[in-house]
């Protein structure tokens, strides 16, 4: 039997790279017609941040908008600000056809740091990590788990997965980033 951690423990590990299950992160799932001008306008004004291009993330100091699908965004804000953003967005979107929900507790965010970060993920995802660049977003799988990840810096990637499997994801990342287990392919 694997040892049971609580889904919300802050986890961290240092091997070939540094892994941190970051503390609570505010997340809002937002569906709507991203092509629609007024819809766009409302979002950008509320978050005062421009919408990302396809497969990209746009970030300001403490907000990020992740492109999830042609009709879906994931908005990242401070955990304790979620409700306030949800309210204001709902208010302004009123009358639009959209869906918006607080999903902060449904997902967790791992922070991966170190120059081997792409190699670690390349052990689990069929996505081409050699062309992955800052602000790129990719939804794919890591081993057997669905995940979305985006590059913050050349040596730093944030990775989102469902809360219920965060323990498994953490264990996988630990094994994949065991010291001197990297193939040294991207160097």
């Amino acid at each position, binding site marked *: 039997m694997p040892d049971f951690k609580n889904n919300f423990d802050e986890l961290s590990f240092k091997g070939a790279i540094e892994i941190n299950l970051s503390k609570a992160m505010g997340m809002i799932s937002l569906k709507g017609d991203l092509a629609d001008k007024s819809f766009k306008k409302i979002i950008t004004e509320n978050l005062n941040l421009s919408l990302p291009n*396809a*497969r990209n993330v746009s970030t300001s100091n403490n907000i990020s908008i992740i492109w*999830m*699908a042609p009709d879906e965004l994931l908005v990242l804000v401070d955990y304790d600000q979620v409700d306030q953003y949800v309210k204001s967005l709902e208010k302004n979107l009123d009358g639009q056809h959209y869906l918006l929900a607080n999903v902060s507790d449904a997902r967790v965010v791992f922070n991966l740091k170190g120059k081997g970060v792409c190699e670690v993920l390349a052990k689990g995802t*069929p996505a081409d990590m050699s062309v992955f660049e800052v602000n790129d977003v*990719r*939804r*794919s*799988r890591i081993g057997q788990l*669905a995940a979305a990840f985006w590059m913050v810096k050349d040596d730093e990637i944030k990775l989102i997965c469902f809360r219920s499997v965060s323990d498994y994801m953490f264990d996988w990342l630990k094994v994949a980033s065991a010291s001197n287990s990297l193939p040294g392919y991207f160097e």
Partner: protein
Amino acid sequence: MLIIKCPYCGVEAEETELTAGGEAHLKRFGPGSSDDEFESYLFMRKNVKGVNFERWHHTYGCGKWFHAARCSITLEVFGTYLAQTLEPPKELLSIIIRKRPEWESF
């Protein structure tokens, strides 16, 4: 191990990120249809040895359903297109005819 480009998010997805959804462009028959119509809709399949039009779901990705034209003998993928259509786009059909002159058409 197929790679198919998702027309929604533009990702060159690997088979393991996708789920195959069987024959495309089936017309749904509901109440009021004959037993034959319903049977053919639900079960009867072309299962072509050659050019297939089929459904794919970008499961480990943007979550969208899309269509692909693929040869079941060489596994060549002629192209992909959105699911919100009743038949393959003309351009795609002409590509296929160019590559497969003997092909009878969709």
